[in-house]
């Protein structure tokens, strides 16, 4: 199973990024091999549709779980049919959130926001 977490830096002690679609990196943690890798988010500086592209990147990288502080509705529309489960991140490091998930201490992410889209 692969857990994805938006992260501010390329390290396990990084804070979870407050943005999903515009996070600079994603930590991908494989629960079977216990290996973590970091992806550079190529959607981060998109003028629009960052959440859609970021969600596509995670689906293409076979993520099963997303631990995030928030998620926009367009991203959620991509993640849901791909059966990616969403959990609300705690105000802890990436590593501690992976640990909290293993301990079943994370709540499902209940709300998706309408996005912070600018005018065109």
């Amino acid at each position, binding site marked *: 199973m692969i857990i994805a977490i938006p992260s501010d830096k390329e390290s396990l002690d990084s804070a979870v990024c407050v943005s999903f679609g515009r996070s600079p990196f994603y930590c991908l943690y494989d629960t079977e091999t216990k290996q973590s890798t970091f992806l550079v988010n190529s*959607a981060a500086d*998109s003028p629009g*549709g*960052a959440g859609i592209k970021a969600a596509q990147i995670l689906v293409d990288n076979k993520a099963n779980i997303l631990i995030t502080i928030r998620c926009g509705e367009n991203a959620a*529309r*991509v993640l849901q*049919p791909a059966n990616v489960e969403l959990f609300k991140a705690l105000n802890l490091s990436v590593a501690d959130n992976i640990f909290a998930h293993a301990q079943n201490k994370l709540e499902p992410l209940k709300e998706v926001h309408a996005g912070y*889209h600018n*005018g*065109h």
Partner: protein
Amino acid sequence: MRGTTMAIEPTLAILSGKGGTGKTLVSVNLASVAKKATYIDCDVEEPNGNLFFNPTKEFGKLVTVKKPVVDDALCDGCHICVDFCAFNALALIGNRLMIFDDICHSCGGCLHVCPQKALSEQESPVGEMSIGQSGTVRSISGYMNIGESSGVPIIAELLKHKDDGLTIIDAPPGSSCLVTESVRLSDFCILIAEPTIFGSHNLAMVYSLVSLLGKPCAVVLNKTMEGGNPSEEFCIKNSIPIIGRIPFDKKLGSLNSVGKIVAREDEHYHEVFSSILKKALEEVRS
């Protein structure tokens, strides 16, 4: 007129960095003092020029844009369109293509790159436009449907109906894509500014846009009062011509607030706007 063609008259765009500075006031009155003019209300999110003109309705149509639709039977999930889309309007989950109409900019690129010819286009309404006459003014106005994300296609449609006569474009506020589209065909921009520090910041923003677009411009100072005017200081500092001053005047405010065109109601204001138009046309020709 023997052997000559009709001269193309200038297109003047009226801009400001924020709403409420007097773009519509100036646009409507400049169009009204001209012998003959076309007024185009490009503020399609909140068009109000026709509240003043109350024109006859001679022409109206829906404005549509093209949105892609996928034939699931033909799509083989190759991912090429998803990678191509510069706006991230497409996603592919399993073999199912998802299309986000709100994000799509109707460029048609996905149809072009699809090897399976699985995509086609469908017309989708985004607003409407109308043309009418009010005295010497031909008024062209558009309206964006509530919930749409971009008025650019509606503005593009309005501009198609511009003729070679004198044209006054009432631009949307700010310095967004909507404004850039609105001033595209203009020969000259008139920036409206308020006499406050906030007003001078808004002026700086819109001045920076027209400079970037290479459009010559001048400023009309609106709501002027006794004392300092930060917008005037900005003009002096940047050598921007000031072609008019409209005082903060209760009479003007009262007439304007009930939808009257002050230049048609009051001789003094007819003079004020005639002078602004004359100076603007001199600037265009200089």
